[in-house]
Structure formats: C-alpha cells, structure tokens
C-alpha cells in the first residue's frame, strides 16, 4: 500500500507500508520524532496524542492506535511541529511552562497536542477536551489554568494544516461503500478497520497479525448523517463526536452520555458502525439505540437488509452478520425526547461502563403508553429489559409502579461479577436507574455532576 500525507507540513510518500504499522511506532522508530510518547499503547492515556487535519478539520487523535493507511491524504502534526519554524512556542506550550503545567513531562507533549487541537477549534470545555490525557503528577489544576489562559490567543499560522489531494491508494482502502462492498465480498475473511479504536488493540496488545485488512475511513458516503421528519440516519462511519453533535438537540441525554464515552481522541476515531458491529456487551451506543427503536442496515455485495437492532446481538461474541456483510448504517424514528442514558463507571470520564442503562418511557395522561429500556453490562449482549417494560406499560406513572417494576429486573438480568462491578451492584444499580428516571422526570435533582459546592 502506498500512501501520502503531510507530516508537520512536509509531504511524506510511503511505499509498501505495513498496513498495521502504527503512526506512533513510525514517528518514534523511523522518523526519530521521539517527542510523541508511548504511555499505554491502547489509547487510554493520551501521551501519544497528535493533531490530524482532514476535511472535517483538526482533531486530536491517539497515534498509538492509528494505523498509517488511515492517514492517507491527511495532515499530521506532532509536538515537534507545534513549535513554529523559528522555534517560537505555540501559546499552549508557553502557557504550560508559565503555569507549571509539567512536572515529569512525559504526558506533556500529549496534553500540548490536545490543547493545540482544541485551541485551533476554539473549544473551551477543557475538562472534556483533556479527559483523554492522563497526568499522574500535577493533579491537572495547572494544566487547566494553562489551557484557559490561551483561549483568546490567535491560532498560530504554522499549525493551520489542510488535507492534501490524493489518488486512491489501494483496493484495501476503498473510496466508497460500493468499492467496499465489492472488495469485502471477494475477501470476506478480511478484517474491517473503521476507527481502529478496538482493532488497534488486537495489534498492539494481542500482537495479532491481521491480513488482509480493509480500511473504511475513505468511504465518505458512509459518513452521512440524515435527519428527516421521520427518521434519524447515521452512516456506519460517523464518528462519535459528530454523532454526539447531531444528538445534542434531539436527545441531549444521549449526547451527554457520549461526552463521557472514551475521550475526545478516541471519539474522533471511533465510529457508530464499529461500536455496534464488534458486538461488545459493554458498548454504550447499542442500549441507547435499542431504547430509541433503532434499525440496523447491513450490506453484502449489492444485497441490503435491515434488522431490528436488538436482534442483531444473538449471543456473547455472536452477531447476525454474514461473512462478507458489513454495517452500512443505523437509523431510528424521530420522536419526542423521553430518552435518558445512565452510564455507571468507576470514573466519570473515559471509562468503560459497568452498567449503561437507557430508558425511553412515554407517559400520556399519567399512564405509561410505551417503554423501551435497554442495558449494557447486564448480560452477554446489549439487552432489553422486556419484563420491566411489561410491568410499566399501561400502568400509572407512579412510585408504586416503579417499585413493582424494580422486582422484574431479576427476571430480565443475571449480571456477572468482574473488575468493574459485582453482580449485585450491577443489578441494584439497574433498579436504581429506573428510580432515578422516575425522580428526574418529577423534577428532583439526581445528577451528581450537576451539583456544586
């Protein structure tokens, strides 16, 4: 595979690249650009953060789980390129010095690049922008002070990158869903790589050799978001930040849940299609989408079919997806917003859910007319709480109904104990989430994130 991209403003043309070579290893080992650090090699610490600019603008990404072919046509900027041509520091770099934002300095290049990217985009929600960068020394306070101090400073001209025009690089890097359908049908055992936020770890942690691989990132037609009067439609390659943006008005609780899903860097890469297709029982999108009554759209060659999303998940590690078939899109009906998504994890930001409960309960004249409730982390698959729903529907929307419905959770779920939570805590929290939904619906303060001193 031959690819071309910009590195700190200079064109790089690579021939015969190993398709699963990571940007981080290439930067450090091949280019000697050792400013970008490896902290965890799985996208959880942000020490390897770089800025990548494409048609959608500048984004912070984790270079440790970013494969080189994903960069074709894009512009990469590392910490070395945050500094100007004459050695002048980016305002974020200077602020990190002035505000004592570095101690051991190892996480610092990653923080700097997250700040360079968020600064370029005018983002000032620093806690969210920096949630994907771990620091063990400072306690973060001086880093946030540094980020705040540069909010009003102009973006230096040298970090304003633009993508470059490129030719199609390889059949394994298809330019459209049609091309993808064709090549995947020919190589149905190939590994599909969307954002590589999961597959990346197969390479960096499981040390698997993946061959062949097909990269989906240039299939622009899979990146469409379509909101009509009847339907909301997301192409499989819509990344989680764009997804969140699109949901902010429609279903704000879902959008807020996505804000806590992984980190800015991971959400820039992670796609809705990938989050569904990998079938994880703890992916956060499926329960929310199931609660919204979503339909999954699959394609194999030129054959398309649709399934109700909850039916896609058959068993742990087993989905209703044929060899050579891929997720093209997911859609759900437009509806008045009754959705609440509750993500329970050890840490609020950038943590995998122990339980993710999504509630969509419609109440008319004091009576429940419709209830769709789904959970992640409660079973081997994302799963609806059918018995609980049945206890609610046609009942008065009252504490008594809630108490009765809570008893039904034991029939729907037998969760497991693992390092994230015990089985009894999972089950009890699921019940507590129904209670929370009810109390929140009645105007009671229930969100610890909304409380201040």
């Amino acid at each position: 595979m031959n690819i071309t991209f910009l590195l700190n403003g200079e064109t790089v043309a690579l021939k015969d690249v190993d398709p699963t070579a990571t940007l981080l290893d290439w930067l450090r080992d091949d280019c000697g650009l050792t400013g970008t650090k490896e902290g965890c090699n799985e996208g959880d610490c942000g020490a390897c953060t770089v800025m990548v600019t494409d048609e959608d603008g500048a984004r912070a990404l984790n270079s440790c789980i970013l494969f080189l072919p994903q960069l074709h046509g894009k512009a990469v900027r590392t910490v070395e390129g945050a500094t100007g041509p004459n050695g002048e520091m980016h305002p974020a770099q200077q602020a990190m010095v002035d505000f004592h934002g570095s101690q051991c300095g190892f996480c610092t290049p990653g923080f700097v690049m997250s700040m360079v990217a968020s600064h370029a985009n005018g983002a000032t929600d620093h806690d969210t922008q920096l949630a994907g960068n771990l620091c063990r020394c400072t306690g973060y306070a001086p880093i946030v002070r540094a980020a705040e101090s540069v909010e009003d400073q102009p973006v230096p001209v040298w970090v304003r990158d633009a993508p470059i025009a490129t030719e199609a690089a390889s059949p394994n890097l298809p330019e459209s869903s049609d091309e993808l359908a064709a090549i995947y049908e020919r190589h149905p055992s190939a590994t599909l790589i969307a954002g590589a936020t999961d597959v990346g770890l197969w390479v960096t942690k499981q040390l698997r050799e993946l061959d062949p691989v097909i990269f989906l990132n240039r299939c622009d037609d899979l990146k469409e978001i379509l909101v009509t009067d009847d339907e909301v439609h997301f192409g499989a390659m819509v990344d989680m930040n764009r997804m969140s943006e699109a949901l902010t008005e429609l279903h704000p609780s879902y959008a807020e849940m996505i804000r806590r899903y992984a980190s800015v860097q991971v959400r820039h890469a992670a796609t809705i299609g990938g989050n569904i297709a990998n079938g994880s029982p703890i992916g956060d999108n499926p329960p929310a989408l199931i609660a919204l009554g979503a339909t999954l759209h699959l394609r194999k060659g030129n054959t398309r079919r649709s399934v109700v999303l909850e039916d896609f998940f058959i068993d742990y590690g087993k989905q209703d997806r044929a060899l050579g078939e891929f997720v093209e899109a997911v859609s759900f009906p437009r509806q008045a917003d009754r959705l609440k998504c509750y993500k329970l994890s050890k840490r609020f930001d950038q943590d995998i859910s122990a339980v993710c409960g999504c509630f969509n309960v419609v109440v008319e004249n004091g009576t429940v007319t419709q209830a769709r409730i789904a959970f992640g982390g409660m079973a081997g698959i994302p799963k609806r709480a059918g018995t609980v729903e049945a206890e609610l529907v046609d009942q008065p929307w009252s504490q008594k109904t809630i108490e009765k419905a809570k008893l039904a959770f034991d029939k729907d779920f037998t969760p497991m104990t693992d390092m994230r939570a015990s089985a009894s805590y999972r089950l009890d929290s699921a019940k507590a989430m129904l209670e929370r939904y009810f109390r929140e619906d009645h105007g009671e303060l229930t969100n610890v994130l909304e409380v201040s001193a």
Partner: protein
Amino acid sequence: MSVASPMPHDAAPLHVTGTARYVDDIPTPKGTLHLAFGLSSIPKGRITSMDLTDVKAADGVVMVLAADDLPFANDVSPSIHDEPLLSDGVINYIGQPIFLVVASSHQAARKAARLGNVHYAEETPILTVEEALAADSRFEEGPRIYAKGDAETAIANAHCLVEDTFEIGGQEHFYLEGQAALALPNEGDMLVHSSTQHPTEIQHKVADALGVPMNAVRVETRRMGGGFGGKESQGNALAVACAVAAKATGKACKMRYDRDDDMIITGKRHAFRISYRAGFDKDGHIQGVLFLHYAMCGWAQDLSLPVADRAMLHSDNAYLLPHARIESHRLKTNTQSATAFRGFGGPQGMVGIERVMDHAAFELGIDPVELRRRNYYEPAHRTEDREPDEEPLNHPDPHEDLTSRGAVETGANPTRPLPSGGNTTPYGMEVSDFVLHEMTDALLKSSDYFARKAAIAKWNAENNVIKKGIAFSPVKFGISFTLTHLNQAGALVHVYQDGSVHLNHGGTEMGQGLFQKVAQVAASRFGIPLEMVKITATDTAKVPNTSATAASSGSDLNGMAVKAACDTIRDRMAIYLAERHQADPTSVIFADGHVEIGKNRYSFAEAAAMVYQGRVSLSATGYYKTPKIEWDRIKGQGRPFYYFAYGAAVTEVAIDTLTGENRILRTDILHDAGASLNPAIDIGQVEGGYVQGAGWLTTEELVWDDRGNLRTHAPSTYKIPACSDRPDIFNVALWNGKNREETIYRSKAVGEPPFMLGISAWLALSNAVGACGDKYPALNAPATAEEVWRGIKFTRGNPDGI
C-alpha cells in the same frame, strides 16, 4: 536570590516541545537489541519443563536466556536476595519473569516472549490475609510490635469504645513513562541508562550480575517520566537484563515494559487490613488504641519491612496517644511484590488512626475537627534536643546492598513498651515542632468550614438523592529514611573559567523539581543567575554511593550537599581574592552575578578566571549527613525523623445515594513546606499529591481474581483520576513558616506529605454516607461508587437494598 522564587521546572521548555529526553528517546547505536520477558502463567508452583524452541525460532530473535544461562548473580532483590531475575524453577506469582528474549526489535521480542512452551506443577496460591495467616506465610519471624504505656487497660477503663476491621487497597504507580533501561557495553565496562530513582542500586545489581566490581558499571539517569516510589527497586530487573544481554551479545540492549507488562510484573503500594480498638473519654480524648496491621507484601521481601515500619510510625498521625500498641504482620502472598509508593506505608498507617477519629466522632456526636484538635500533640515549644548516642561500630559486608532501604539492619533487643506521658510518639520521639493547632485554625477560617458544614446539613435535609459531606484531616509526616545510614548525600560542583557552573548530585529528577531547587541553591550560594548553573544527569561516576531519591529527602539531602560543595569553592575564591586585595575573606560578597572585595567589583566570570589563574581549584565535592537521628526498628524506639512536615485539608463531596457515584466539589489545603525553596514547585507537589492520594482512596481499585490474576492491568480497567476528577474548587496555600531544624534554607520536604491530604476526601465520603442513616458507614478504601453504595446500605441497616 533565586532561592524561594517560584521558577518553572528547569526542563519545562523541553517538556512542552517534546525535546526532553527519556531513556527510550536516547538515540541508540546501530544493531541495538531489544528485550522482553516471558512471564509465568500460574501463581504458585514449579516449572516442570520449559521448551523455548519456538521462542528461539521466532522472527528477529537473537538469543534467549533462562536462569541457568546467567553467568553470575541471578538476583534483583533490593533486600534479602529472594528475587531472581529469571525464575530458578519456583513460581511465585502470575507475571513472574521466567525467560528473557533478546531480539532485533521491541515488537519482535514481545511477540517471541509469548511463544514459550512451559509446563508447571501448580500449587495452591496464598492470596488473602486469612490464607497467609493460616500458612504462617510472612516476612520476619513474627509480628513487629511498638508500644507505649498500657493500651489494653486504658481502653478497658474508657467511656467509649470503637472497634472495627477494614480494608485499604493497594495502588498502581501509573508513572506515565513505563520502566526502561538501556545498556551500552564498552571495553568490558557497562554504561547503563536507567529510569530509576536509585542509580547506585542499579549499579550494584548490575555489577553483581556481571561479576565485576562497581567501578566497572556506570549508571546515568537524566530524568524519569514519574516515579512515585515505583522506580526505587523495580527498575533492577530491566537494567540487569540489559546488562547481561549486552555483555553476552556485545551489543547495546534496551528494554522497556509495555504498559500491561509493567502493571503485571512490577510491585504496587501495599494493601493493608487494619483492625482497631480504641477507647475515648466522653469529651473525645483518646485513652488508648490497639492497631493490628496486616500488610500484603506480595511474594518477595523487597522494601516491605521498612514500609510496614513506616505504617506503624504513622499510626499516631497528629495525635498524642497516651497508650498505644501497634502490631504489624508482613504477609507473604503470591502476587506482585509490593514496593515503595509515595508515603511508603505512612498513608496506610495514617488512614488507620484517621478512621479511629472519624468513628469516635460519629459515636460521640462531637464535631470531627473538634475531636481531632482535642487529641493533637502539644504545640511547638523548644525542647532540649538530645544528642544521639555514640553510634556502635559494625562491620557491614561490602557486597551487601547497603544503599537500599531493604538493607538488613543490625539486630537489637526485643521491644519493651515505652512509658506513657510526655509529648511523645508511640515510638518515643518528642514532638517539638507541632504547628497544626495554628494551621488548623487558619484553614478552618479560610475554608469557612463551620458555615459550610451547616449549609451541608441543610442541603442533606432537603435532598433525598444527592447528599453532601465535608471532612477535615491533618497530616504529620516524619522526614528521614528510617534506615539511618541512608541519610547522607554527595554533590560535585565545578566552576569553569568563564564562570559557568556544572552541578551534579546524587538525587534523581522524576518531575518533582529537585534539579531546579538544587540549582537555585547553587545559584544563591554563588550569587549568580540561575542560567549560569547547568544541571546534569545523575551519574554514579560523579557522585558515588548515593541513596535512592525517596522518603521526600531529595532536596533536604542533596540541597545541603550542593551547598557544602558551593561553599567550599566560594570560600577558596574568597580567600584568594581577599589575599590579592589585602582584604578579609569574610568581607568578600557574592551577589548579583558579581564578586565584591571592598571597592573592587568583578563579574563572577572574571573572578573565576582570576582564581583559575591563581592556581586554585574550582571543583569541589560536598557532603551532608542528617544530624540528630537514631532509630532502633526492632525496639521501636528512638528518633527516626529529623523533623515532621505538616498539612491540613478540608474536602467537600457529593454522593448519589441511588448508585454511590460521587465526586469532589471543593478542597482547601494549607501545607507546611517550611521556608519554601520554590513555592510554585511546592504547590505543584501539593496539588498533585492530593489528587493522587484522593485517587488511591476513591477510584483506583486493584482487582485480582481468585487465581491471583491481576484483572486491572491497563488504564482501561485501572482508573487514576482524570482531568475532571480534580476538585471543582481547589484552593492550595503554603503555611508560611520556617523549619525549626537547620535544613537547607529552613525548607521542608514536600514530596510525600501532601499525598495524605487525600484522606480528607475519603472521610468526606464517609460523612456524606453517614447522612443517609444511623450507623457509622464503615467504608473500606478505595471508596469506589460501589463501596459508597455498600456503605449507604450498611448505614441504613438494610443490606438487601437501598
């Protein structure tokens, strides 16, 4: 004068531009080889057969070594030689290195390391306190006991009794830079770059492994990407592996752990179980306390004895205990060997007594701050400092690991309880510098504690789901290595003929700003701008026989050693220049980059050139040893600490009573750094220490399964605080005082003490949970959302549901 000024970290411009070089960033010679360990997959047993054919045949593999292939010492222990580099056939935990792959790349080595075909005879592992006690699996012959007065009788006669048993979890260091080493063979000698807090330890272990004297090994450490104690002994294995492989192949060898390997192989903070029984009078004065410590040490001794000792030594924290008995069991288990971590056992001991105070305040209905103040040590007053007794001469074995905190100390007589009474600790040390009365008053005022406590009570009365809590906790932390002979340091200072200064000392830089502080000392001694001082990598060839940069001692020890070296040169310069100008040497002034002798004024550079031409040495070593300390760890008596560092914090939290989710809303801290050498760096230590301490007691949960498999071995499952976990409102101030002891510019050590301010967050959670029911919440640590949820159920007396 540069001392006391809030200068940024010396390497900050390098950090932010990505040009600060860590071990893995050092350019390596062509042909450098890369290493990885093959790891055991069982927790306990013996290797019955090991077939490494596939490993050797894997792409890029140059050499594979097992225990039998090691030419000399197979030992990376910092204490009693119980930690082989590669398993000698016995397996002690899941993740123990059993063979070493040497390959052409890091990835090739990692891949090959998974191809070993190893068979084991598996035995039942010891993983819990109960299992260890049942098997009498422990380090040392039995428990250590420190005692003062008669605690049993005092408790029996007390008005109020509190007792309980609770768990304190361990903690992964999660330094952002994983362990790393690079060995470069050179004419039979070895240069090792190591990410270590203890270059001399590395030098010693490498020399033993190569069968050469220490002078054939040079260790250099420019900086670490975080240490926190995790690089005091845990870097030994990588450095020794690299050196052995470098000697065997004649090539440079590098090793760095992938994050998961790092977490699976290396030691962590000791988990403790603490049982307590304490008696109080009706006004909340403690009458006596019994502590039972069970320290989970893991499979090798490492530094566990001094860690467990320090936990005992902080079982009083800020409180004068008239009668106390602390019994400490050091349990040997089939998990990673627990090691040094910021506070070195002190935090666990301190959590024990703070739990007692919290429990008693709840039972007696006394404000927890008030109860604490009633039990404080007497305020500072001048007491006669005892001179230490004449040190007995002993004859240490020069081949022993004398510079390790795990070094064996000469024996002594068994414990006898100390008499009760006096302003003394349970180990008989007079507390003569206690400033917490004043600090507490100031902090309660600045944090508006009492008004906020009332507002929180009101909030809790009005809100069903979200409850708030607030808590105060003090810190009194002893400063010095408890192994007395480690309290020494050396420095090497050169002044060049152009007036520039080259500075070296035995301390290592891990982010704490030690180099900057020490450079500020040097600049101040010579009266020159900081830019004229070059800080150089720690190097065993420049300053020998150094102690680990640990125990918060870095600035205290190395600052004084550098001062001594600078003063030697300054005095030589003054004598020479005074003689030339017929003046008194004491009248020569070094200030503002100049040297003044009467009416004559030279730039420092001119002065240096003149002194050079006068054939006077402009190079000097400096040396320092901490005075006044003496300690008998077997008796549990003496003065282990030169002085105490103090701090106090007030934390407010909110909890969701439905799920236990919780967070910190506000924290106010007042911390005693003496006369701060650099207030910016010290505040950085306080902010960072607090968040790390709060993380230990809240979200950071280590989980092993029932086979001893660590299930939280990556940041995806082990959750250190993230950006938004810091307090919304975070007010940190330094207590403006001078150290009563003659430390460097009367400053105080600041590395570890602020970590324990995080205890206030745990206590605030207890306070919030306590607002949900009638029973004392009895939280364990860490107080994860699940633990808070459990506590709420417990306090409501309803274990079956909230």
